């Protein structure tokens, strides 16, 4: 059941960033998957093509995606933020542009991202690739750091304040626009990190942004839009559900699990497990 944990951790990384930006800025960012794809492609480009050491390549990739995220927020999302529909459309456009750009520069074939670690580890009788364990550990660490950051620091409190009531926070002198940029950077960096970590065992491909956005959406709906704890819980539920279905039922059924979960949740409890109110 280690496999479920690894899948879940990657999902959690994706979903936390997605829900964070929604909780704080009320932005449903459909370009979230593109950050994931760009993180993975960035690592591929720097490590496999340019020949940089992998760790540096990965760090640079994550950092540049964070910058890209801020740029997207500043230039594209901010002028449209008063309209949820506008944001939805423009982020969708961003994701398509990124996909086409990757398509044109790299072609539609799978590309190999080298692994950070090549060893195989045997945990309780199950063989797991070292890269997967690393992905799990780093994902956990990143989410833990984020949690500490939000709970313990002044900036974190500011983020929380805006999430609770943007207007009141503004009156208290919190520079909401700057906070949005920060949150966007964190959100993009988390997605890029997920891409970097998953890249070595999944390879990269231009339409790879689609799957994460579907999963992130499903997780966030199940967990409650805007709730970080909910996202983590839901990520694990979904990750395990998929693994269990693949193992016990059939591999061709896994992809339907997340869609089904979303549908059920929307019917039964539109606010999600931890959500306070329905998002739509």
């Amino acid at each position, binding site marked *: 059941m280690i496999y479920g944990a690894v899948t879940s951790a990657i999902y959690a990384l994706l979903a936390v960033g997605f829900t964070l930006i929604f909780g704080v800025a009320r932005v449903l960012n459909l370009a979230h998957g593109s950050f994931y794809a760009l993180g993975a492609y960035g690592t591929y480009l720097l490590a496999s093509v340019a020949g940089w050491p992998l760790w540096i390549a990965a760090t640079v990739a994550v950092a540049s995606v964070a910058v890209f995220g801020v740029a997207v927020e500043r230039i594209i999302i901010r002028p449209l933020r008063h309209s949820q529909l506008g944001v939805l459309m423009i982020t969708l456009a961003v994701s398509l542009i990124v996909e086409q750009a990757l398509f044109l520069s790299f*072609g539609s074939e799978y590309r*190999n991202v080298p692994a950070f670690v090549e060893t195989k580890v045997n945990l309780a009788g199950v*063989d797991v690739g070292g890269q997967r364990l690393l992905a799990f550990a780093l994902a956990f660490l990143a989410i833990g750091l984020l949690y500490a950051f939000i709970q313990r620091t002044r900036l974190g409190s500011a983020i929380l304040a805006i999430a609770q009531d943007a207007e009141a926070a503004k009156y208290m002198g919190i520079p909401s626009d700057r906070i949005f940029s920060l949150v966007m950077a964190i959100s993009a960096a988390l997605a890029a990190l997920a891409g970097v970590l998953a890249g070595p065992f999944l*390879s990269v491909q231009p339409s790879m942004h689609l799957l994460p956005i579907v999963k992130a959406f499903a997780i966030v709906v199940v967990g409650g839009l805007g709730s970080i704890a909910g996202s983590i819980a839901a990520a694990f539920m979904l990750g395990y559900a998929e693994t269990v279905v*693949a193992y016990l039922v059939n*591999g061709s059924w896994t992809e339907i699990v997340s869609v089904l979960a979303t549908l059920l949740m929307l019917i039964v409890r539109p606010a999600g497990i931890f959500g306070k109110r329905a998002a739509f």
Partner: protein
Amino acid sequence: MRIERRSFGKKALRGLALTAGTLAISGMVNAVHAQNAAPVRIGVPTSMQLQVGRDTITAIKMAVDEVNAKGGVLGRKFEYVAADETENPETGISAIKKLTADEKVDLLIGGYTSGVTLAQLPHISAAKTLYLGVGAASPAITAKVKQDYDNYKYIFRVGPINAAHQARALVDYISNFVIGELGYKQIAIVGENAKWVQDLVPVLSKGAKDVGAEIKLSELFDTQTSDFSPLMAKVKSSGAQYMIVVLSHASSDVFAKQWYDAQVPVPYGGIDVKSMDGDFFSRIGGKSISEVAGNFAVRAPLTPKTIPFFDEFKKRSANYPVYTAFFAYDSVHIYADAVKRAGSFDTDKVIKELEKTKHVGVVGEITFDETHDVQTGKGKANLIFAQWQDKGERAVIYPKELRTGNFMLPPWVKR
């Protein structure tokens, strides 16, 4: 750019012919002459972003150059125009419409995804345009020819051998090599959930059981699957000694990597279309080591044409060709020969001649059965099983008479 200019030239010719025609009856004669001298246009619908597509186009260009170097056929030179059909049926249909309606091609050579080709068939037959398939393997494609000859007589499959034939070739490999030589009777069958695999697996399972294999696990997974670890765990715990795979559209790259990373103690092989790519081994960091994949040809003297074709192709494109290239190259020559024998470009007459084809091609002798499907057998199109070995060298393992190396186990498996 070049194609643009050609089509401009053709338009100019047509314009000229038209003006001439309105002037006098002698003008009409000119028009007919102009039409006759116009080049034969080959439409190439394929997945241009993939190696299968790029190689199709390179191979067609090679064959077209050869035909033109000999002065063309019946006084007409050949030229080609490509359209991207991707792996999506809707885009595939637009590609056919573009080629038949806008580009007014004389015939079509191409195809890769069976689902796309099946969706294109009604549009090809509506346009009454010859179609020589070089990529899709579903038997359902040529089955239409038998069901409704008048509408679908335009469809031929030059290659690859269809999914049912591939299944039989795979059964031969299991019976003669996996069981016969390696002594592995416990087998797992793993494939992607796609049309041609759904066609293939029942034939494969039944055949394997008939030759004494014990099927420990048989499973199809979604083509979007990105995490194969539950599947690998299942294969391992099933007690299978050998894993037979049937993959083309799903990610063979990811599959091989995750198999290697988890050091699954089960060697694998079968039909793995991406593993036919010359750069498969290197692009996944050598993780396909010891995988055996069926190929439709390797650089070996299968026919007098095989080695020259491989070498000339390598000169032109920097990589060795994948299977669509063999059949695309042969298709152009098969069409040219049929036209010569028919003495005319009339589609019905050419079809009659195509049906009688006996063409020594890159992979073997190409002949068609009554459904216009390429036949298999000794000396004809076949599956040749080659293994990825150290440094990305490919060794032919089966059939025995073509063997160029000895079978190796994955580095972490002890017998």
